[in-house]
């Protein structure tokens, strides 16, 4: 049994790592439950993130609110298609992709699927790596709101969606972290040992 924090091996009877004092757990059998719990929480938080406004722009007395998707469309209208693509990718494609990917991984482990172990493992690594980048939009809102504060001339303020979206990203990150990748490979042995 390997310590998941520092990698040192121990006999199965130990409860704490002799090197880094982390609690030892051979397999996290509750992993799928945790993954689903965080994932659904993230999904629930993602809905208001898209429905409510992300940015509130006041220009010369006129206030406009834009949601995530609305902001992307605005950018396209203004001609910055590249930036629109980045924002769309980070705030829509990546989160939705994460939801689908994590759901797929969790289902495949619960069904004890033997197929595509390497691909699923790669998928897991990609999901873990890419997950944090969804926070781009939250930071964009933060910077814009801080920069553009010129009273009546022009001012930008964050909407409630920024908070909701950040929560959603945090939850999906936690969901990906709770996934025990070793469960993908374990199916190999369980089936083989029969």
């Amino acid at each position: 049994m390997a310590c998941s924090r520092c990698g040192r091996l121990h006999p199965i009877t130990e409860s704490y790592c002799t090197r880094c004092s982390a609690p030892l757990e051979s397999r996290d059998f509750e992993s799928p439950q945790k993954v689903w719990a965080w994932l659904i929480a993230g999904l629930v938080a993602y809905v208001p993130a898209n429905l409510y406004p992300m940015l509130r722009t006041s220009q010369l007395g006129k206030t406009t609110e834009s949601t995530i998707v609305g902001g992307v469309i605005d950018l396209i209208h203004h001609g910055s298609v590249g930036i629109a693509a980045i924002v769309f990718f980070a705030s829509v494609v990546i989160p939705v992709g994460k939801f689908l990917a994590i759901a797929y991984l969790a289902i495949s482990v619960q069904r004890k699927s033997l197929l595509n172990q390497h691909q699923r493992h790669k998928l897991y690594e990609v999901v873990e790596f890419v997950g944090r980048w969804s926070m781009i939009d939250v930071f964009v809102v933060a910077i814009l709101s801080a920069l553009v504060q010129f009273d009546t001339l022009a001012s930008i303020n964050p909407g409630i969606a920024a908070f909701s979206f950040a929560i959603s990203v945090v939850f999906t990150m936690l969901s990906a972290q709770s996934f025990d990748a070793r469960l993908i490979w374990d199916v190999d042995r369980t089936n083989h040992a029969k």
Partner: protein
Amino acid sequence: MTSILTESPSADRQDSAWQFAKSPCISESDGPLRLCCDIEVKALKPSLPPLADLVACPQCDTLHHAARLPEGSRAYCKRCGIVIATERATAFAQVLSLAITAFILMVAAISFPFLELDVAGHHNSISVLQAVTVFNDGIALLLAIAVAGFIVFLPLLRLASIIYALGPLVRGKPARRSAKEAFALAEFLQPWSMAEIFIVGVAVALIKVAGLAQVSIGPAFWAFCALVLITVLKDQLICRYSVWQALD
């Protein structure tokens, strides 16, 4: 330091090694592990090499033998292909110097003005921490703290932990008392230090505003960019396995 040469059955199989010991002459159908015994569990010697000589892949739990790596090479897991260890003589010193540089840059980045905006005579200059305080009504205060954490405090904490853990090692002295906890903390914080994502977000925001007004970039921005580059480089250089071994 160490390398991965051959494959053994999964780390978790040790329990099965003990269970099978009670039955006579059980041999497992795959891998080199064979058990043949008719004596009690207590007297049985497992045919696995001593645990200290083994390494388990952190992602698929396959056991490998640990041996010395030639300089500059990497060891990959035989089953799932991720990098388990690398060997680089000056790695610790490089990582430490990068971490110290990054720390200093971060302190500079939050002290100096970050960006300045000029619109029709109005001038607004912000620092990184000011960018965070926009979320300051009601529930959004939580978000402000979280964002400040992600881009400033957690990266600082992570860098400090790495410096604390690796410092004495580079000078050849034994590690400090809670160096292991410090390094574990640094590992834990890795996905939550979002400094580089912040920079990309700032770039996106700048392009959004560039049409509106005149934007000038303060020194903190360049400090932050350098910080991000150094952090990425440092993360590439760290070999976790070697550090844990050295911390022992």
